[in-house]
Protein backbone atom coordinates (compact mmCIF):
# COMPACT_ATOMS: atom_id res chain seq x y z
CA UNK A 1 0.00 0.00 0.00
CA UNK A 2 1.37 3.43 -0.82
CA UNK A 3 1.74 6.11 1.84
CA UNK A 4 -1.09 8.32 0.57
CA UNK A 5 -3.55 5.43 0.67
CA UNK A 6 -2.39 4.50 4.18
CA UNK A 7 -2.93 8.07 5.34
CA UNK A 8 -6.42 8.15 3.83
CA UNK A 9 -7.31 4.96 5.68
CA UNK A 10 -5.88 6.34 8.93
CA UNK A 11 -8.32 9.22 8.62
CA UNK A 12 -11.23 6.90 7.95
CA UNK A 13 -10.30 4.86 11.04
CA UNK A 14 -10.09 7.94 13.26
CA UNK A 15 -13.44 9.19 12.01
CA UNK A 16 -15.26 5.85 12.20
CA UNK A 17 -15.69 5.82 8.41
CA UNK A 18 -13.61 2.74 7.63
CA UNK A 19 -15.37 0.25 5.37
CA UNK A 20 -14.95 -3.50 6.00
CA UNK A 21 -12.61 -4.03 3.06
CA UNK A 22 -10.53 -1.03 4.08
CA UNK A 23 -10.17 -2.22 7.69
CA UNK A 24 -8.21 -5.32 6.68
CA UNK A 25 -6.06 -3.24 4.35
CA UNK A 26 -5.22 -0.78 7.12
CA UNK A 27 -4.55 -3.49 9.73
CA UNK A 28 -1.97 -5.03 7.41
CA UNK A 29 -0.32 -1.64 6.86
CA UNK A 30 -0.27 -0.86 10.60
CA UNK A 31 1.24 -4.26 11.41
CA UNK A 32 4.11 -3.69 9.02
CA UNK A 33 4.80 0.01 9.60
CA UNK A 34 5.65 1.31 13.10
CA UNK A 35 5.75 4.94 11.89
CA UNK A 36 2.14 4.59 10.77
CA UNK A 37 1.19 3.33 14.25
CA UNK A 38 2.90 6.34 15.83
CA UNK A 39 1.09 8.62 13.39
CA UNK A 40 -2.22 7.06 14.38
CA UNK A 41 -1.53 7.68 18.09
CA UNK A 42 -0.54 11.29 17.49
CA UNK A 43 -3.62 11.98 15.40
CA UNK A 44 -5.83 10.27 17.99
CA UNK A 45 -4.46 12.64 20.62
CA UNK A 46 -5.30 15.60 18.40
CA UNK A 47 -8.79 14.21 17.77
CA UNK A 48 -9.42 13.86 21.52
CA UNK A 49 -8.26 17.42 22.10
CA UNK A 50 -10.54 18.80 19.39
CA UNK A 51 -13.49 16.75 20.63
CA UNK A 52 -13.40 18.72 23.88
CA UNK A 53 -14.48 21.89 22.12
CA UNK A 54 -17.36 23.14 20.05
CA UNK A 55 -18.12 26.33 18.20
CA UNK A 56 -20.08 28.80 20.28
CA UNK A 57 -23.73 29.24 19.42
CA UNK A 58 -24.63 32.74 18.28
CA UNK A 59 -26.97 34.49 20.75
CA UNK A 60 -30.71 34.43 19.97
CA UNK A 61 -30.84 38.25 19.67
CA UNK A 62 -28.11 38.13 17.02
CA UNK A 63 -30.04 35.49 15.07
CA UNK A 64 -33.24 37.50 15.34
CA UNK A 65 -31.52 40.66 14.08
CA UNK A 66 -29.96 38.70 11.22
CA UNK A 67 -33.27 37.25 10.05
CA UNK A 68 -35.02 40.62 10.34
CA UNK A 69 -32.41 42.45 8.29
CA UNK A 70 -32.24 39.75 5.57
CA UNK A 71 -36.01 39.77 5.18
CA UNK A 72 -36.10 43.58 5.15
CA UNK A 73 -33.40 43.70 2.49
CA UNK A 74 -35.09 41.31 0.05
CA UNK A 75 -37.09 44.18 -1.50
CA UNK A 76 -34.15 46.59 -1.40
CA UNK A 77 -32.01 44.26 -3.47
CA UNK A 78 -34.14 44.57 -6.61
CA UNK A 79 -34.55 48.31 -5.98
CA UNK A 80 -30.81 48.91 -5.83
CA UNK A 81 -30.22 46.75 -8.88
CA UNK A 82 -32.77 48.67 -10.98
CA UNK A 83 -31.72 52.08 -9.68
CA UNK A 84 -27.99 51.35 -10.16
CA UNK A 85 -28.45 49.89 -13.64
CA UNK A 86 -30.73 52.75 -14.68
CA UNK A 87 -28.33 55.42 -13.39
CA UNK A 88 -25.40 53.82 -15.21
CA UNK A 89 -27.28 53.64 -18.51
CA UNK A 90 -28.53 57.21 -18.14
CA UNK A 91 -25.03 58.48 -17.43
CA UNK A 92 -23.54 56.62 -20.41
CA UNK A 93 -26.30 57.88 -22.74
CA UNK A 94 -25.81 61.47 -21.51
CA UNK A 95 -22.04 61.36 -22.05
CA UNK A 96 -22.43 59.91 -25.55
CA UNK A 97 -25.10 62.52 -26.44
CA UNK A 98 -22.86 65.38 -25.28
CA UNK A 99 -19.81 64.04 -27.13
CA UNK A 100 -21.75 63.60 -30.39
CA UNK A 101 -23.55 66.94 -30.39
CA UNK A 102 -21.50 69.40 -32.53
CA UNK A 103 -23.80 72.26 -31.48
CA UNK A 104 -22.55 72.17 -27.87
CA UNK A 105 -19.56 74.34 -26.90
CA UNK A 106 -16.21 72.59 -26.93
CA UNK A 107 -15.86 73.03 -23.15
CA UNK A 108 -18.89 70.76 -22.51
CA UNK A 109 -17.72 68.13 -24.94
CA UNK A 110 -14.17 68.30 -23.59
CA UNK A 111 -15.40 67.97 -19.99
CA UNK A 112 -17.61 65.00 -20.87
CA UNK A 113 -14.68 63.36 -22.67
CA UNK A 114 -12.40 64.05 -19.68
CA UNK A 115 -14.95 62.61 -17.28
CA UNK A 116 -15.31 59.45 -19.34
CA UNK A 117 -11.54 59.11 -19.69
CA UNK A 118 -11.04 59.71 -15.94
CA UNK A 119 -13.60 57.09 -14.95
CA UNK A 120 -12.06 54.59 -17.37
CA UNK A 121 -8.62 55.29 -15.87
CA UNK A 122 -9.95 54.82 -12.33
CA UNK A 123 -11.49 51.52 -13.39
CA UNK A 124 -8.24 50.35 -14.99
CA UNK A 125 -6.21 51.34 -11.90
CA UNK A 126 -8.64 49.45 -9.64
CA UNK A 127 -8.44 46.34 -11.83
CA UNK A 128 -4.63 46.53 -11.78
CA UNK A 129 -4.62 46.95 -7.98
CA UNK A 130 -6.85 43.89 -7.56
CA UNK A 131 -4.61 41.89 -9.88
CA UNK A 132 -1.49 42.83 -7.88
CA UNK A 133 -3.24 41.99 -4.60
CA UNK A 134 -4.19 38.64 -6.01
CA UNK A 135 -0.52 37.68 -6.51
CA UNK A 136 -0.10 37.68 -2.71
CA UNK A 137 -3.51 36.31 -1.86
CA UNK A 138 -3.37 33.09 0.23
CA UNK A 139 -6.88 32.26 -1.03
CA UNK A 140 -6.04 32.34 -4.74
CA UNK A 141 -5.82 28.56 -5.02
CA UNK A 142 -9.11 27.97 -3.24
CA UNK A 143 -11.65 26.51 -5.64
CA UNK A 144 -14.59 28.91 -5.78
Amino acid at each position, binding site marked *: MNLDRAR*QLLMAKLDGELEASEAAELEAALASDPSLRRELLR*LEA*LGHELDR*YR*LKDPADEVLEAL*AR*SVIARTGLHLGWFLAGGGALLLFAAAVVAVLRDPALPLVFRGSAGGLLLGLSLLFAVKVRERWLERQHDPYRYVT*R
Partner: protein
Amino acid sequence: MPSREPELESSLLRRARDGDREAFAALVLRHRREALQVALGFVGDLEDARDLTQEAFLRALSHMHRFDVERPFFPWFYRILRNLCFNFLAKRGRHGECPLVLERDGGIDPAGAGVSPLQSLEASERGERIWQALCTLSPEHREIILLRHFRDLSYQEIAGFLHIPRGTVMSRLFYARAALREALESRLGKEGPTLAEATEAS
Protein backbone atom coordinates in the same frame (compact mmCIF):
# COMPACT_ATOMS: atom_id res chain seq x y z
CA MET B 1 -26.78 20.10 9.53
CA PRO B 2 -30.29 21.14 8.61
CA SER B 3 -31.58 18.34 6.39
CA ARG B 4 -34.80 17.98 8.38
CA GLU B 5 -38.19 17.71 6.67
CA PRO B 6 -37.02 17.61 3.05
CA GLU B 7 -40.57 17.81 1.65
CA LEU B 8 -41.28 21.02 3.58
CA GLU B 9 -37.94 22.47 2.52
CA SER B 10 -38.50 21.68 -1.13
CA SER B 11 -41.96 23.26 -0.96
CA LEU B 12 -40.47 26.40 0.65
CA LEU B 13 -37.77 26.52 -2.01
CA ARG B 14 -40.32 26.22 -4.81
CA ARG B 15 -42.43 29.01 -3.33
CA ALA B 16 -39.39 31.22 -2.69
CA ARG B 17 -38.27 30.70 -6.28
CA ASP B 18 -41.72 31.84 -7.43
CA GLY B 19 -41.34 35.07 -5.46
CA ASP B 20 -43.05 34.19 -2.16
CA ARG B 21 -41.22 36.31 0.42
CA GLU B 22 -42.77 34.48 3.36
CA ALA B 23 -41.37 31.18 2.11
CA PHE B 24 -37.95 32.77 1.77
CA ALA B 25 -38.25 34.19 5.29
CA ALA B 26 -39.02 30.67 6.55
CA LEU B 27 -35.88 29.38 4.83
CA VAL B 28 -33.81 32.10 6.47
CA LEU B 29 -35.23 31.16 9.87
CA ARG B 30 -34.42 27.48 9.31
CA HIS B 31 -30.81 28.02 8.28
CA ARG B 32 -29.65 31.24 9.94
CA ARG B 33 -27.95 29.57 12.93
CA GLU B 34 -25.84 27.17 10.85
CA ALA B 35 -25.13 29.90 8.30
CA LEU B 36 -23.88 32.36 10.90
CA GLN B 37 -21.71 29.69 12.53
CA VAL B 38 -20.13 28.86 9.18
CA ALA B 39 -19.35 32.52 8.50
CA LEU B 40 -18.01 33.00 12.04
CA GLY B 41 -15.75 29.99 11.56
CA PHE B 42 -14.29 31.58 8.46
CA VAL B 43 -14.02 35.28 9.31
CA GLY B 44 -14.02 35.32 13.11
CA ASP B 45 -15.68 38.67 13.67
CA LEU B 46 -19.40 38.61 14.47
CA GLU B 47 -20.26 41.81 12.60
CA ASP B 48 -18.47 40.67 9.46
CA ALA B 49 -20.02 37.21 9.75
CA ARG B 50 -23.49 38.74 10.02
CA ASP B 51 -22.98 40.94 6.95
CA LEU B 52 -21.65 38.05 4.89
CA THR B 53 -24.48 35.76 5.96
CA GLN B 54 -27.02 38.41 4.98
CA GLU B 55 -25.38 38.87 1.61
CA ALA B 56 -25.29 35.10 1.04
CA PHE B 57 -29.01 34.77 1.74
CA LEU B 58 -29.78 37.60 -0.68
CA ARG B 59 -27.57 36.06 -3.37
CA ALA B 60 -29.24 32.71 -2.84
CA LEU B 61 -32.59 34.40 -3.36
CA SER B 62 -31.50 36.14 -6.54
CA HIS B 63 -30.05 32.87 -7.95
CA MET B 64 -32.89 30.67 -6.80
CA HIS B 65 -34.07 30.13 -10.38
CA ARG B 66 -30.83 28.19 -11.07
CA PHE B 67 -31.28 25.89 -8.09
CA ASP B 68 -32.85 22.43 -8.28
CA VAL B 69 -35.45 22.68 -5.52
CA GLU B 70 -35.54 18.90 -5.04
CA ARG B 71 -32.00 18.99 -3.64
CA PRO B 72 -31.12 20.11 -0.10
CA PHE B 73 -30.69 23.86 0.22
CA PHE B 74 -27.86 24.13 2.73
CA PRO B 75 -24.98 22.55 0.73
CA TRP B 76 -25.76 24.90 -2.17
CA PHE B 77 -26.10 27.87 0.15
CA TYR B 78 -22.87 26.86 1.92
CA ARG B 79 -20.92 27.27 -1.31
CA ILE B 80 -22.30 30.77 -1.85
CA LEU B 81 -21.43 31.70 1.73
CA ARG B 82 -17.94 30.18 1.73
CA ASN B 83 -17.08 31.94 -1.53
CA LEU B 84 -18.20 35.24 -0.07
CA CYS B 85 -16.14 34.56 3.06
CA PHE B 86 -13.04 33.59 1.06
CA ASN B 87 -13.40 36.72 -1.09
CA PHE B 88 -13.79 38.82 2.04
CA LEU B 89 -10.71 37.30 3.67
CA ALA B 90 -8.66 37.69 0.51
CA LYS B 91 -9.65 41.36 0.32
CA ARG B 92 -9.00 41.89 4.01
CA GLY B 93 -5.58 40.33 3.52
CA ARG B 94 -5.15 39.34 7.14
CA HIS B 95 -4.89 35.60 6.79
CA GLY B 96 -3.68 34.11 10.05
CA GLU B 97 -5.21 36.70 12.38
CA CYS B 98 -7.90 35.37 14.66
CA PRO B 99 -10.25 37.91 16.17
CA LEU B 100 -12.85 35.25 16.94
CA VAL B 101 -11.51 34.24 20.33
CA LEU B 102 -11.82 37.79 21.54
CA GLU B 103 -15.51 37.86 20.75
CA ARG B 104 -18.02 36.81 23.31
CA ASP B 105 -20.23 35.24 20.66
CA GLY B 106 -17.48 33.53 18.72
CA GLY B 107 -14.58 31.15 19.15
CA ILE B 108 -14.50 27.78 20.78
CA ASP B 109 -16.21 26.96 24.04
CA PRO B 110 -15.32 24.04 26.30
CA ALA B 111 -18.08 21.51 25.62
CA GLY B 112 -18.12 20.14 29.14
CA ALA B 113 -20.01 21.65 32.06
CA GLY B 114 -19.64 21.34 35.85
CA VAL B 115 -15.92 22.04 36.02
CA SER B 116 -14.00 24.15 38.52
CA PRO B 117 -13.08 27.77 37.65
CA LEU B 118 -9.42 26.76 37.31
CA GLN B 119 -10.25 23.88 34.97
CA SER B 120 -12.56 26.17 33.06
CA LEU B 121 -9.80 28.76 32.70
CA GLU B 122 -7.32 26.13 31.52
CA ALA B 123 -9.86 24.78 29.05
CA SER B 124 -10.50 28.28 27.71
CA GLU B 125 -6.79 28.92 27.30
CA ARG B 126 -6.34 25.60 25.50
CA GLY B 127 -9.37 26.39 23.35
CA GLU B 128 -7.84 29.72 22.46
CA ARG B 129 -4.57 28.04 21.50
CA ILE B 130 -6.43 25.55 19.32
CA TRP B 131 -8.32 28.37 17.66
CA GLN B 132 -5.14 30.37 17.07
CA ALA B 133 -3.47 27.28 15.60
CA LEU B 134 -6.46 26.68 13.33
CA CYS B 135 -6.19 30.22 12.06
CA THR B 136 -2.65 29.64 10.85
CA LEU B 137 -3.82 26.86 8.51
CA SER B 138 -4.52 27.38 4.83
CA PRO B 139 -8.17 28.21 4.07
CA GLU B 140 -8.90 24.75 2.68
CA HIS B 141 -7.33 22.96 5.64
CA ARG B 142 -9.13 25.16 8.12
CA GLU B 143 -12.41 24.59 6.32
CA ILE B 144 -12.18 20.82 6.34
CA ILE B 145 -11.32 20.73 10.06
CA LEU B 146 -14.30 22.98 10.78
CA LEU B 147 -16.62 20.78 8.73
CA ARG B 148 -15.41 17.51 10.24
CA HIS B 149 -14.79 18.41 13.86
CA PHE B 150 -17.05 21.34 14.59
CA ARG B 151 -19.97 20.60 12.27
CA ASP B 152 -19.75 16.80 12.58
CA LEU B 153 -20.26 16.14 8.88
CA SER B 154 -19.63 12.67 7.45
CA TYR B 155 -17.13 12.19 4.61
CA GLN B 156 -20.03 11.83 2.19
CA GLU B 157 -21.55 15.11 3.35
CA ILE B 158 -18.19 16.93 3.17
CA ALA B 159 -17.66 15.54 -0.34
CA GLY B 160 -21.09 16.88 -1.31
CA PHE B 161 -20.48 20.29 0.27
CA LEU B 162 -17.07 20.77 -1.36
CA HIS B 163 -17.72 18.90 -4.62
CA ILE B 164 -14.68 16.68 -4.13
CA PRO B 165 -14.31 12.85 -4.06
CA ARG B 166 -14.25 10.93 -0.76
CA GLY B 167 -10.56 10.12 -1.25
CA THR B 168 -9.75 13.82 -1.50
CA VAL B 169 -11.70 14.46 1.70
CA MET B 170 -9.54 11.88 3.49
CA SER B 171 -6.26 13.16 2.06
CA ARG B 172 -7.12 16.77 2.79
CA LEU B 173 -8.10 15.84 6.33
CA PHE B 174 -4.77 14.10 6.85
CA TYR B 175 -2.73 17.11 5.74
CA ALA B 176 -4.99 19.51 7.63
CA ARG B 177 -4.66 17.55 10.86
CA ALA B 178 -0.93 17.13 10.44
CA ALA B 179 -0.58 20.90 9.92
CA LEU B 180 -2.83 21.63 12.88
CA ARG B 181 -0.93 19.24 15.13
CA GLU B 182 2.34 20.88 14.17
CA ALA B 183 0.95 24.38 14.77
CA LEU B 184 -0.54 23.32 18.06
CA GLU B 185 2.56 21.54 19.32
CA SER B 186 4.71 24.52 18.50
CA ARG B 187 2.34 26.65 20.60
CA LEU B 188 2.08 24.14 23.45
CA GLY B 189 5.82 23.58 23.27
CA LYS B 190 6.44 27.26 23.96
CA GLU B 191 4.02 27.43 26.83
CA GLY B 192 3.61 23.98 28.32
CA PRO B 193 3.38 20.22 27.74
CA THR B 194 3.11 18.47 24.38
CA LEU B 195 -0.28 17.82 22.88
CA ALA B 196 -0.24 14.16 23.93
CA GLU B 197 0.76 15.09 27.51
CA ALA B 198 -1.82 17.84 27.68
CA THR B 199 -4.54 15.44 26.52
CA GLU B 200 -3.35 12.76 28.94
CA ALA B 201 -3.28 15.17 31.89
CA SER B 202 -6.79 16.45 31.23
